[in-house]
């Protein structure tokens, strides 16, 4: 089996595969290390194709000795060719990975299902998380399905839709008077005090592995090929770095060939510590106080910021920030050209794609994938007032008055 140890990304120190996330020598992040040398590409590909319609089809690349059984699946979301969006932006080939099509309508189902499977394996009875909303939905739902007790910590000013879509699952919902970074600090302290599985604190090395499955699905859905460029939203920077790791692992095993795609990160201007560091040529992120409608990306102190910066630079991509108005326009653009209604984070991603296209950075021969991470119904305020209804009486005359007389049938 390929699973080896937890390994520090900074200094390489290894640790046993337990609930641990920080290197005791240098405080660097721990990551799951594998040995893929025993995997044969053709055999692995057959196994994946015969696997379940969920992220567990990629079990050989996830941190388990054998395929876990989980009550609520995740993944295998659509990858749609978005020709109308491409045409609108003057691009050649654009694909939308629609991760709103997960059980709780965001990519967080992937990471949570991995973290909870690990928590059960290690014997934890209570799961918890620090969340900007989507993670809260996912932890509450997957814990309910698995019969685990859960504590979900969110900033008190979160969108109402996300609060309601968390509480409904019967979790212990803790509204913290502070921003996400305050919530995160509290949970980091609590993780040291309680025997709970905090999915994105002490279980973070396992949790974040779930994000690799976005890369695996994209490559499989493109016919075992890599895109030329990928646009991904950045909050902590974990998703974008893990998508790269997923592509790298498949390149190593020989499931795909070619260079790593260009990685373009997308942030909201009101919370853009990574984009600012990119612009300034720094390799570290100065924390910021978030002020944006893209609350699911509102992490002012991004844990994986340095790795996201390195990835964007070495692949020839970049990291951009867009304004709240551009985010609203991005949501509309995606909806009007693809039929996909995304939340504010998807508005950030789509607006960043539009910005890159406008600047002429994307060649017409490029195959571009845009990663849409969440559902528009969770952030309805972002589109409120963005259009008008046609108000009529229930008569054909009233309708004709309102819209004009149409051509003869």
């Amino acid at each position, binding site marked *: 089996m390929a699973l080896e140890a937890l390994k520090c990304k900074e200094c390489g120190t290894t640790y046993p595969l337990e609930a641990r996330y920080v290197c*005791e020598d240098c*405080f660097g992040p721990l990551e799951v290390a594998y040995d893929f040398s025993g995997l044969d590409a053709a055999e692995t590909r057959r196994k994946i194709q015969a696997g379940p319609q969920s992220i567990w089809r990629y079990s050989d690349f996830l941190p388990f000795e054998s395929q876990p059984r989980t009550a609520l699946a995740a993944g295998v979301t659509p990858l749609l060719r978005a020709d109308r969006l491409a045409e609108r932006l003057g691009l050649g080939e654009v694909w939308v990975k629609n991760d709103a099509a997960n059980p709780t309508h965001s990519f967080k189902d992937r990471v949570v299902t991995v973290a909870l499977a690990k928590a059960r394996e290690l014997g934890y009875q209570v799961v918890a998380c620090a969340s900007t909303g989507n993670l809260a939905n996912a932890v509450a739902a997957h814990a309910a399905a698995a019969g685990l007790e859960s504590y979900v910590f969110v900033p008190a000013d979160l969108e109402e839709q996300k609060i309601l879509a968390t509480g409904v699952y019967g979790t212990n919902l803790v509204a913290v008077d502070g921003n996400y970074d305050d919530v995160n*600090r509290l949970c980091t302290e609590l993780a040291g005090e309680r025997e709970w599985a905090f999915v994105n604190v002490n279980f973070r090395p396992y949790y974040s592995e779930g994000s690799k499955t976005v890369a695996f699905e994209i490559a499989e859905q493109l016919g075992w090929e890599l895109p030329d460029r990928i646009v991904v939203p950045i909050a902590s920077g974990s998703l974008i770095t893990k998508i790269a790791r997923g592509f790298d692992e498949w390149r190593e095993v020989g499931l795909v060939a070619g260079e790593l795609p260009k990685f373009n990160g997308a942030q909201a201007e009101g919370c853009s510590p990574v984009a600012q560091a990119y612009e300034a040529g720094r390799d570290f992120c100065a924390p910021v106080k978030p002020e944006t409608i893209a609350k699911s990306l509102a992490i002012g102190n991004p844990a994986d910021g340095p790795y996201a910066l390195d990835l964007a630079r070495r692949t020839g991509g970049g990291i951009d920030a867009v304004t709240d108005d551009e985010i609203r326009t991005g949501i509309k653009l995606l909806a009007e050209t693809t039929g996909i209604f995304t939340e504010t984070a998807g508005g950030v991603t789509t607006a960043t794609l539009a910005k890159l296209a406008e600047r002429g950075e994307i060649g017409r021969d490029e195959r571009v994938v845009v990663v849409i991470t969440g559902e528009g119904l969770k952030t309805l305020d972002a589109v409120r007032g963005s259009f008008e209804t046609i108000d009529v009486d229930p008569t054909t005359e009233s309708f004709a008055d309102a819209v004009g007389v149409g051509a003869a049938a």
Partner: protein
Amino acid sequence: MSVTVKIPTQLRSVTGGEAETAVDEATTVGEVLDGLYDRFDGLRDRIAEDGGLRRFVNVYVGGEDIRFLDGLDTAVDDGDEVTILPAVAGGC
């Protein structure tokens, strides 16, 4: 004049298991940390490099990240609480 320091689990192997300690006669966060380095062997190597903090170490005074204050020069008063935590948590 005394400042309370909260030690994360990852550092308790060098603090003899202590989760909380007090530093007297320090006027800045930097002096608080120097006081800890004098007392606990090996602590400096784990969280500091090149005269500053390692990039995956967060330090808070009264819950506020010192990078929003004056960094290691942030003033501390009697009764303040300084918290050291790993930065590698949270997020998506």
